[in-house]
């Protein structure tokens, strides 16, 4: 059985099916016998489910379609911001949500406060890892957000 520290690292990137025990894995085996890690996994599940309930989940799209949509949404958000359109933040958040939906893994656990606000910067999605990389206006600062 994998040790606790390895299990807790794996919690960060595990599929929800592993966390709820519906899919067998070394992590799932560990969670079945370790109450402390089980509690952490439950917190991850609870947070993710809460976010799912708050967010309208649309159909999954191809990466290209989602990226195009995100760009379009971002542009619309910028135009809307200039027009002082009060719904601009929601549009921007929807752009990010579209990107996140491309992933095959669990839904994002981004907290409400962590949802991007307009104007969203260029977003690069890593297919290999569940991260979003934001370039910023400052060339010396890059933001890597994991979900």
């Amino acid at each position, binding site marked *: 059985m994998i040790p606790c520290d390895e299990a*807790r*690292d794996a*919690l*960060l990137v595990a599929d929800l099916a592993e966390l709820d025990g519906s899919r067998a894995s070394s992590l799932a085996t560990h969670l079945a016998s370790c109450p402390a890690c089980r509690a*952490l996994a439950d*917190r*991850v599940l*609870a*947070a993710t489910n809460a976010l799912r309930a708050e967010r309208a989940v649309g159909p999954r799209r191809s990466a290209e379609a989602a990226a195009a949509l995100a760009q379009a949404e971002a542009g619309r958000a910028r135009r809307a911001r200039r027009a002082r359109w009060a719904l601009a*933040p929601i549009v921007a958040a929807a752009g990010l949500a579209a990107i996140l939906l491309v992933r095959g893994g669990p839904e994002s*656990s*981004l*907290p*409400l*406060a*962590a*949802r*991007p*606000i307009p*104007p*969203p*910067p260029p977003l690069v999605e890593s297919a290999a*890892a569940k*991260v979003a990389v*934001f370039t*910023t*206006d*400052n060339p*010396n*600062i*890059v*933001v*890597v*957000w*994991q*979900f």
Partner: protein
Amino acid sequence: MRAFPLFLLALVACNAAPTLETRTFALQHLQPDVAATMIEPYVYDQRDGAPGRITHTAQTLTVRETADNLDRIAAVLAEYDKPKPWVRLHFQIIEADGARAADPRIAEVETELRKLFRFTGYRLLTEAVMSGTAQSDVSQAVGEGEGQFFIEVVIHDVRTVNDTGIVAMQVRLRSLIGLGLGSQINAREGQTVVLGNTQVGEGPRRSTVILTVRPELVR
């Protein structure tokens, strides 16, 4: 008819074993077995009549090869037998929604984070500086009590390109009150990489912790 002797000469020349020399290289920083592996492609140990050869001691590498190849090997060793550059890593651990008052120590990062996220404020929890070389791992506990964090870094590679450096590293942050975060990072010197994810604390302790890391090459 006159071409025949020339052809013979050329044939003899082609079949003649090359003249080999032996040269010993003193290694300052590279491990001899690593250096030997590095120069293997320049040593033709299957050459008929004059096979190349490498032997090494604890501090030296002795190679028997043609003069041309020995010069190439010397150039390779000169390129790579250098001290590993040290890198100093500057860390900041920031709590999102931690404070409304601006902190000049995180001003640049906060400016960019405010453009990205809705957190109402950012508070610098603690800072740390760690140093290491390529292929080393360093770790440090910072903070106290429940606010204690443990930063672990595996420095895979430190490369200097022109006047700047690029550091490839695995960074991991753990806290006692929630989950950690970690990522593989390639950061250039002076660049601040901001790592964040959702921390799933409970109730009022629910917070998001952000780790920034900025490499600085020690010259």
